[in-house]
C-alpha cells in the first residue's frame, strides 16, 4: 500500500544569530537544527505518535509538515506527490488534504468569533462547501457531538472539552485525509481526555483519517496509536509498532521515558530515578551518540561514534549501539 505521507530527511534550521554576528564569531553554523534529518512514513487511516520531551523538535516537525515553518532540507510527499515550497500559492490546495489541531483548546480559537463562524471559517477561506454554511456548521457540530445551540457562543464561554471538539470540527470541515494533532489532550481533565480520544478514533474509522499525534503523554499514546516515533534533540531515536515498544523498548531513552511515567498504584512506587540531568541545549549537541550524557548504559564507543537509525527487528528501528530489545 502506498503511504499517505512520506517524510525523507526533513531538516528544519532556526537561525540563532544575525549575519554580522556570524562573521564576527566566524562560525559556519549560525543556526540550530530543531529537526535533524527525520524520515518516516504514515499509512492511510493509521495513527503515528511522535513522542518526545519539550525541545525534541516534535512540534516544529508538525508545523513544517503543514507549511507553517520552512524546512531547510529533505522532501515530503503526500500521496506520492511532492509538497511545494512553503510560499507557493499551490500550498492552499494541500491545506485541504491535511489539517492541524493545536495544543491549547481555547487559545487556538480566534477569540472574537462565535463557534458557528469558527467552524464555517475553513470553508469560507477555500470558497468550498455547500451554499448553506450555517447548515454545514450544524452538521459538523453534530459530528463532534456538540449541541447545535452552542454555535452562538464565544471561545471563552466553552469548557476545555467543548473547545477541543470545536477544534476537531474545524479540522474536519474540509474533509482532510490527514490530521496533525499537537497535544490533543493537553490541559483537559482525565475523563474529558478519554472523550476526545474516543471521538477521534470514531472519526478515524468513519472517515478513514490518518493521524499524526504529537504528544508527551505516553499513557494515552498506548491506546490510540499504531506506531510510535520517539524524538530526542530533533532526531528520531526509535520507531516501531506501539505495542512492541511498550513491551520491549529498544533505545535507553525510550526505556527511561516509559519508566518515568507515574504509576497510579501506591504499591508500585519507583524509588529510584532512571534518568537524571536535563535535555542538552540544541546549541551544544553532545558529540557522537547524543544521548550518552544521560544514558545509564553508555559505553566508550558511545562517546566516539554516532549510531545510525538501524533495523533491529521487523518494522523496528533504533539509533543505539546497544539496543535493549535486540538480544
Amino acid at each position: 500500500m502506498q503511504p499517505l505521507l512520506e517524510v525523507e530527511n526533513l531538516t528544519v534550521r532556526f537561525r540563532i544569530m544575525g549575519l554580522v554576528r556570524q562573521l564576527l564569531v566566524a562560525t559556519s553554523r549560525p543556526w540550530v537544527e530543531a529537526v535533524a534529518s527525520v524520515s518516516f512514513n504514515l499509512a492511510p487511516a493509521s495513527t503515528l505518535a511522535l513522542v518526545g520531551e519539550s525541545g525534541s523538535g516534535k512540534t516544529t516537525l508538525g508545523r513544517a509538515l503543514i507549511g507553517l515553518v520552512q524546512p531547510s532540507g529533505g522532501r515530503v510527499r503526500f500521496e506520492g506527490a511532492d509538497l511545494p515550497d512553503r510560499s507557493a500559492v499551490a500550498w492552499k490546495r494541500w491545506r485541504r488534504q491535511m489539517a492541524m489541531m493545536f495544543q491549547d483548546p481555547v487559545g487556538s480559537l480566534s477569540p472574537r468569533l462565535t463557534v458557528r463562524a469558527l467552524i464555517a471559517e475553513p470553508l469560507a477561506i477555500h470558497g468550498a462547501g455547500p451554499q448553506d454554511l450555517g447548515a454545514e456548521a450544524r452538521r459538523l457540530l453534530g459530528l463532534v457531538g456538540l449541541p447545535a445551540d452552542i454555535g452562538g457562543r464565544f471561545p471563552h464561554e466553552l469548557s476545555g472539552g467543548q473547545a477541543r471538539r470545536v477544534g476537531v470540527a474545524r479540522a474536519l470541515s474540509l474533509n482532510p485525509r490527514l490530521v496533525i494533532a499537537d497535544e490533543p489532550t493537553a490541559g483537559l481533565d482525565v475523563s474529558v481526555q478519554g472523550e476526545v480520544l474516543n471521538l477521534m478514533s470514531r472519526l478515524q474509522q468513519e472517515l478513514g483519517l490518518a493521524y499524526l499525534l504529537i504528544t508527551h503523554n505516553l499513557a494515552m499514546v498506548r491506546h490510540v496509536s499504531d506506531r510510535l516515533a520517539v524524538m530526542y534533540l530533533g532526531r528520531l531515536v526509535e520507531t516501531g509498532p506501539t505495542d512492541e515498544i511498550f513491551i520491549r523498548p529498544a533505545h535507553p531513552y525510550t526505556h527511561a521515558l516509559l519508566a518515568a511515567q507515574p504509576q497510579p498504584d501506591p504499591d508500585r512506587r519507583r524509588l529510584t530515578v532512571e534518568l537524571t540531568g536535563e535535555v542538552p541545549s540544541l546549541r551544544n549537541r553532545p558529540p557522537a551518540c547524543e544521548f550518552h550524557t544521560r544514558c545509564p548504559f553508555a559505553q566508550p564507543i558511545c562517546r566516539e561514534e554516532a549510531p545510525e537509525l538501524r533495523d533491529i527487528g521487523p518494522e523496528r528501528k533504533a539509533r543505539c549501539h546497544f539496543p535493549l530489545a535486540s538480544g
Partner: protein
Amino acid sequence: MSERSSAILEVKDLSVAYATPRGAVRALAHVDLTVPRGEIVGIVGESGCGKTTLISAVLRLLPGNAAVTGGSILFNGREVLAMNDAELRRLRGGGIAMVFQDPMTALNPVLSIGRLMTDVQFREQRSTPEKQVAAIAMLRRVGIPDAESRLDDYPHQFSGGMRQRIAIAMALLTNPSLLIADEPTTALDVTMEAQIIHLLRALRRDFAGSILFISHNLGLIAELCDRVAVMYAGEVVESGPVGALFHNPGHPYTQALLRCDPARIERRTAELPTIPGEVPNLLVPPTGCVFADRCPDTIERCRTTVPVPVSLGPDHQARCIRIDNAAAA
C-alpha cells in the same frame, strides 16, 4: 489538646461562596481535611472542583468576592480565620510556604537567584554571608549543580526543572511547617517530573515537614502521598490512606476517576472509559449528592439526601449513601 498537636492543618466543615452577578456560587461545601505532622497529603480532583479555592482559603488569600460561610481552619491549633494581619504575614512567610505550578512566573525575573534566596530569609537573625551559606546549602540540597557559582544567575538562565527546584529551595528556606505544592510538575516534562517527585519525597524524610500536594494526576498522588482527599464540585467526596483509597475506592466518583486514567489500563483499548455528563452548575447546587447526575448507581434518595461521610476503614471515609445501605444490608 492532644489532637491539636497531632495535625499541622485541620480544616473543618469549611464552606466558601463566591458572589457573582448571576448569584452566589457555592465553591466549597463542608470540606474536612486533616494534614498530620510529617505526612504528605494529596488533593486530587478535576478542574473546577475547588482545589484552588481551598488553598486560597487556608492562606486567607481568597479574592474579594469570596466569603467563608462556615467552618474553621486550624493551623498548628490556631484559628486561621481569626488571625489579624501581622499573624497572617507570619503564617504565609513562615508557617506555610507555597510552590506554584509555573516556575517561570513564580520567581521574580529581575533578581538574581542569590538575591532571591537571601531575601527570603528576612525573618532570620543572620548576617548576609550566613544567609548566603544557607542559600548555597539549600540549593545543593535540591540538586542544583555548582550552587556557589550560580548565585549571580537570573531565573531565565535556568531550565524549567531547575527553576522549580529553586522555588522549592526558597520555600524551604523559610522553615515552613507546611509546604503547599500546587501542581508543581504540570509545566515539566515526564523525566523532570519524576526527578521533582523524587526530590520532594527525599526532602520530606530529612526536613520532617508536612506537604499538601495538589494534583490532577492520580499517578503522582500514588507515587508521593500518604493520604489523599478526592474533591468533586466543592466537596471532599472521599478521603483516606493512599493504599486504601486506590485499592478499595468507596465513592463512585473516585472509582470513575481511577477507571478513566489511561495509565491504569494495562491492555490497549479502542474505547477509553469516560465519565458521562458534566460537572454540576454550582450556582444552583444539587439538593442531594453532587455526583448524582453522573453516577451509574444513582437511586432516588441520592437526589434528595445530602450524604454524610461514611467510614470505610481506619481514617477512610466517603460521602455516599449507598455505602451505608450496603453496610446495613
